[in-house]
């Protein structure tokens, strides 16, 4: 029905989360008929981003630089490190403005049946970072799902010789489980109500 090139485009747009055949077809025809300039911009951006984006060497967030903007910002509080599950969590916390320290992004949680272990989460890198730098507080802000708690507890165990304080952010009500779904004020309370782990 569609010409081969258009069909290819539709098929490839369907790789996007939440995009089915109908939306993909709509997008394809919109780009080709009404906004070829935008189509080229998207194509170019995608190409550039895919080629140049990689994990920040310090915190594992995605960036085109060796070190991301947050890690490169020397005005931040070098005494605190916040461990989160995903880049979306970093954005949520940054938007709330509650935290001024540095981050480490696990990009997931320990998932036994998916074969995601400590190496996939960059934990050796995290422990190296903790050894090398002078943090006084490490805040665990992983999600409150079973996997998130397991991951947090594992990291807490591994940090038992860390000389500073390890804290876990507090959640009154377990919401979606992921920080990105928590609104700013809830996140603020969760941060200020964080508790040291005994």
């Amino acid at each position: 029905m569609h010409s081969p090139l258009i069909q290819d485009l539709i098929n490839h747009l369907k790789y996007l989360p939440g995009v089915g055949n109908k939306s993909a077809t709509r997008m394809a025809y919109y780009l080709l008929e009404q906004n070829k300039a935008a189509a080229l911009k998207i194509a170019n951006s995608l190409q550039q981003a895919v080629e140049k984006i990689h994990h920040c060497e310090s915190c594992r967030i995605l960036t085109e630089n060796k070190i991301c903007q947050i890690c490169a910002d020397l005005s931040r509080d070098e005494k605190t490190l916040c461990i989160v599950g995903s880049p979306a969590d970093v954005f949520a916390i940054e938007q709330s403005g509650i935290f001024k320290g540095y981050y480490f992004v696990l990009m997931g949680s320990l998932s036994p049946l998916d074969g995601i272990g400590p190496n996939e989460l960059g934990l050796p890198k995290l422990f190296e970072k903790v050894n090398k730098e002078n943090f006084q507080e490490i805040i665990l802000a992983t999600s409150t799902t079973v996997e998130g708690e397991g991951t947090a507890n594992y990291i807490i165990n591994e940090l038992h010789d860390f000389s500073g304080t390890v804290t876990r952010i507090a959640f009154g009500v377990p919401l979606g489980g992921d920080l990105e779904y928590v609104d700013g004020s809830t996140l603020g309370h969760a941060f200020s109500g964080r508790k040291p782990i005994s």
Partner: protein
Amino acid sequence: MPSRQEQLTSQAYVLYSKPYQENSLILDVLSRENGRIQLLAKGVKKSKKGLSFALQPFRTLQIKYLLKSNLSILVDAEIIENNDKPFKDNKVLYSAYYLNELLIRLLPSHEEVASIFSLYQQTIQSLKEFSLYEHAIVKSELCLRLFELKLLNQIGYEVDLQTSALTAKQIESDLNYVYIENIGFVSTLELEHPSFNQQNTIVLSGKTRGECLIKLGQEEQDFFQDNLICRQQIKQLLRNILHLHLGEKPLKTRELYQQLFVKNKITIHKSN
């Protein structure tokens, strides 16, 4: 036109979930009524009720669903156990994930096995209980081994812990036994006896003391807590027997457990 399908209700545990499209999950579930089933939980990540939070492993759930031969449809779910405690010990938590993987690998879908559901439920509850104590994983070991043993029995592989397979004599405390595939336990004395024909038999590696087998059959918690040798021997034995059923593909949960708790890792310096 098919008539509107009846909605079913069952207690269930999520064994595994994976994301599907943007807001949905595909779940592998152990249900009391229909055994292991695969469920599509549509749009749950956006659910205001916190449904995706409820749909996690090790929680006793009451699910409503439409049963299909392939992928069933989840209609609703709620946590039914009020005091649904988390695991307080990570070694026990990751051992519980191992049980989930065993079920997924060994238990065929849609086989109604209420006894497996009860076994799993009891095992998870006991493990959560043990996880509150010191040396939680040592306390949990017998529970894990009994799960393996009973699961083997349920899938039609009976392991007779009481009689020596060749002579039909009682297993004796002081003898060592090997396990022969499809035959059973044979004492090392019988094995060495010239009358025993080893041809066409597969003898699993490792020996187990008769006493350990007897105590396993009697489910002697205190004995296993205090007896490292028996814990090791029974663990190896059941691992070898399970291996016959699992085939070559390694268990992901076992590999993770090794990585988390056994292998050498970077440690945090004491003086910072």
